[in-house]
C-alpha cells in the first residue's frame, strides 16, 4: 500500500483552530504531516528512532510557532525547512551511526516495485551521501520538489542545488554500477 500525498493536505480551518488552542486540531495537523516530516528525517539518517525523535521535536517547535504560520502551504514549507535544519543540526552534534543491512531490511515498508533489494541499496547509498546532497536528493525524490523549491528550503542558490543533485546522481550511478 502506498499512500498518495498531496502538497498541503490540511483540511480547511484546522490551522486556524489549532492557533486558537484547539489540541485536537493540532493533532489533526500532526496526523496529516507526520509521514512527510518523519520520511525526510528517516531518509536522511536511515534510522527510524532518530527520525521519530527529530519529527517529534519538529512538531513541538511547530506548536510553539503556530502564531507565525500564515497559511496551510506556509505550514508545509515551514515543516520541511525546520526538519531539514534539525537533521543537519543533529548530524553535526553526533556522529552518524552506521546502519546494518539487517536493520534496513526491518525498515522496509510495503513495496511498490518488484525490486526491494535495489530500493534498500539506494536508501543506503543516499544515507551515505554528503549531508547537503542527501537533503537535496530527499527533497527532490521524496517530496517531488523542483530545484527552485528546494533552494528556498535549504537556503542555497538554485544552481548550487542543481549541482548537488547532479553530483549526487552521478555518485549514486557510479556506486550502483560498482555493486
Amino acid at each position, binding site marked *: 500500500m*502506498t499512500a498518495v500525498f498531496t502538497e498541503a493536505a490540511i483540511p480547511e480551518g484546522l490551522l486556524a483552530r489549532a492557533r486558537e488552542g484547539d489540541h485536537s486540531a*493540532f493533532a489533526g495537523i500532526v496526523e496529516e504531516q*507526520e509521514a512527510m516530516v518523519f520520511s525526510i528525517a528517516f531518509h536522511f539518517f536511515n534510522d527510524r528512532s532518530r527520525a*521519530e525523535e527529530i519529527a517529534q521535536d519538529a*512538531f*513541538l517547535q511547530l506548536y510553539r510557532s503556530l502564531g507565525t504560520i500564515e497559511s496551510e502551504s506556509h505550514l508545509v514549507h515551514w515543516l520541511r525547512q525546520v526538519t531539514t535544519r534539525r537533521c543537519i543540526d543533529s548530524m553535526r552534534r553526533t556522529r552518524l551511526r552506521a546502519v546494518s543491512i539487517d536493520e534496513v531490511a526491518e525498515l522496509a515498508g510495503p513495496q511498490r516495485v518488484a525490486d526491494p533489494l*535495489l530500493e534498500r541499496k*539506494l*536508501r543506503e547509498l543516499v544515507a551515505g551521501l554528503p549531508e547537503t546532497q542527501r537533503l537535496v536528493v530527499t527533497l527532490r525524490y521524496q517530496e517531488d520538489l523542483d530545484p527552485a523549491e528546494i533552494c528556498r528550503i535549504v537556503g542555497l542558490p538554485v544552481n548550487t542545488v542543481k549541482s548537488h543533485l547532479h553530483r549526487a546522481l552521478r555518485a549514486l550511478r557510479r556506486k550502483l554500477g560498482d555493486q
Partner: protein
Amino acid sequence: MDIERDLNDALRRREAPAGFASRVMARIESGEADAPAAHPERKPWRAIAAAILLTAVLGGWAAHQESERRAGERARDEVLLALRITSEKLHEAREQVNEIGTNH
C-alpha cells in the same frame, strides 16, 4: 536502469510509526512545548537583577574613583603646603642671615 524513477520509489514517503501523533500530543499536554514560554516573568526579573548588579558595580567603581581623586588632591595640597612652609622658613633664614651681615 532509470535511477530517478528508482529514487522516487526508494525514497517515497513512509508512514510514521504507529502512535506517533499521540506521542507528540502527550509531550505537548505535559507542557514540554510550553517550556520556553511558560516562565516569561523570569526574564524581566533577570534583567532587573542584572541592572541592579551593574548599577552597584558601576556605582562602586565611580565612588572608588572619586575617593582616589580626593586623596590625590589632598596629597597635592599637603605637598604644596609643605613647600610653602619650607619656602617661608628659607626666606626667614635668609632675612636673618642678611640682618646679621648688616649688623656686623
